[in-house]
């Protein structure tokens, strides 16, 4: 499977970009070229140079350092928001699948449909107006919207798996419903969930950037790609690089995770199960 994956172009490119973003975020945890929040008014709006590779912003902060810290921020949002969606969503989806057709199943799935009916970012804005702006609340708002996505996918995939004879054999062996879900269903739907997780990861990064752009996501002085974009608007004619670099960072990260998801979908496709 690994050799097949490494021959898949979008998987390789997606993985490379993703690893780059992760690497940058990890480095940023220990080291950035400059302090990402240190202002130097004397050095404001400097174009890219040897000391400030990506230039400085209107407060003289180093753009590269801010981008690196922004990568950390984006990954944090992605990991936690997708984590919330995965853990709660998959649990709900699998429970719904074991009780297919029951009132509980109907209730879970109709609530999912209900949340699907609203545009995710718009409702995230609504949630943030109630909870108040901030990174943690933004993560919660994005996480909530990941729950129905995973619930629906987990339910559908679990239903397929649960129709197989090995599930009957497990029941005949005396396994409990929970044991069957944990030992048989979950391992067999992991591939689908991983694919969806990488797509949701990209969407989470985009959503955080959008919310921060609107000023209700990550709060200053913590760097966020979305807020950097917003800040750059005023100086677009003088210092266009202020918009280009965070914009490119968002595009690159989202592209990376999407390509990775596409690649994984092909590699993990159950229809070509040669390992």
């Amino acid at each position, binding site marked *: 499977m690994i050799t097949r994956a490494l021959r898949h172009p979008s998987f390789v490119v997606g993985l490379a970009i993703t690893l780059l973003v992760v690497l940058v975020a990890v480095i940023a945890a220990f080291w950035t070229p400059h302090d990402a929040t240190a202002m130097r008014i004397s050095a404001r709006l400097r174009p890219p140079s040897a000391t400030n590779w990506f230039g400085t912003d209107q407060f003289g902060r180093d753009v590269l350092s801010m981008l690196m810290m922004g990568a950390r921020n984006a990954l944090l949002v992605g990991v936690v928001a997708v984590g919330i969606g995965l853990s709660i969503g998959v649990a709900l989806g699998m429970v719904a699948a074991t009780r297919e057709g029951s009132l509980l199943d109907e209730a879970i799935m109709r609530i999912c449909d209900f949340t699907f009916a609203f545009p995710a970012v718009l409702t995230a804005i609504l949630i943030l107006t109630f909870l108040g702006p901030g990174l943690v609340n933004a993560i919660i708002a994005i996480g909530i919207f990941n729950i129905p996505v995973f619930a629906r996918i987990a339910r559908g995939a679990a239903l397929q798996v649960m129709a*197989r*004879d*090995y599930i*009957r*054999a*497990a*029941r*005949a*062996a*005396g*396994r*409990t419903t929970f044991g069957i879900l944990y*030992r*048989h269903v979950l*391992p*067999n739907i992991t591939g689908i969930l991983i694919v969806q997780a990488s797509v949701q990861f990209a969407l989470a990064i985009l959503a955080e950037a959008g919310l921060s752009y609107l000023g209700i996501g990550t709060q200053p002085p913590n760097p966020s790609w979305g807020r950097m974009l917003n800040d750059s608007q005023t100086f677009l004619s003088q210092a266009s690089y202020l918009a280009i670099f965070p914009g490119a960072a968002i595009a690159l990260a989202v592209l990376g995770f999407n390509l990775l998801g596409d690649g994984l979908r092909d590699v993990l496709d159950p229809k070509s*199960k040669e*390992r």
Partner: protein
Amino acid sequence: MSPVLEARDLCKSYALPRGTLLERQRRLQAVKNVSLRVEAGETLGIVGESGSGKSTLARLLMALEKPDSGQLLWQGEDLTALTAAELRARRHGIQMVFQDPYGSLDPRMRILDTVAEPLDMTEPGLSREDRRARVADILERVGLNPEVLARYPHQFSGGQRQRIAIARALITRPRILVADEPASALDVSIQAQILNLLADLKLEFGLAMVFISHDLGIVRYLSDRMMVMQHGVVVEEGETERVFTAPSHDYTRALIAAMPRLFEEEDHGAQRL
């Protein structure tokens, strides 16, 4: 002699999907008033064409599905009246071999864990070495090299997979084995191997067996008594040889007449179903 497994008037129906929202809910009666007894060490053959309710009956006998009505007596105890936990505790005595060896083994589970699954439920405290030894032992009995323990199902052929499934079914030493068309998904050359293996294991383990098939030749070869099912109903039952030599129901006669025969001229006398 008291039967190992006895079914009394089992009925099972399924809701058919509605064509339109306002259409009346229709139900398919898959199994209707089926009663049967399986004595210790005896093989009961069940024949019928596809859709006759054989597989539903198998799942009912395994208590994998709840009947709409009727009783399922396992050593005198009604399994349909038990709680889920009580039922689980009795499951190791009745095991099953499924038709499709590609669907009955979890593709993500090693052979060791697959075969040990029923054992893990009955003897959870078993040490790793003992567990491994028990699995290796049963694999040898079904004709597989115990070196296969760490492999995954996709590395095996259909016949080998069915041997693995049989090993899993027998590891807890059940008293009865329900075999739902265990050979029909296999190559003809492999079918005989698996059927002979089942016949041998039946003697070795003193198993009672419910053998479900659409193939009358196989049922005749393996079973002591047989039942013929049509549209969810048992139309004939009796000693296997008696049913073959003197069938009393038209459907049975038609089935027997439709059996392929070697070295015979075209059978113009075959009755139509």
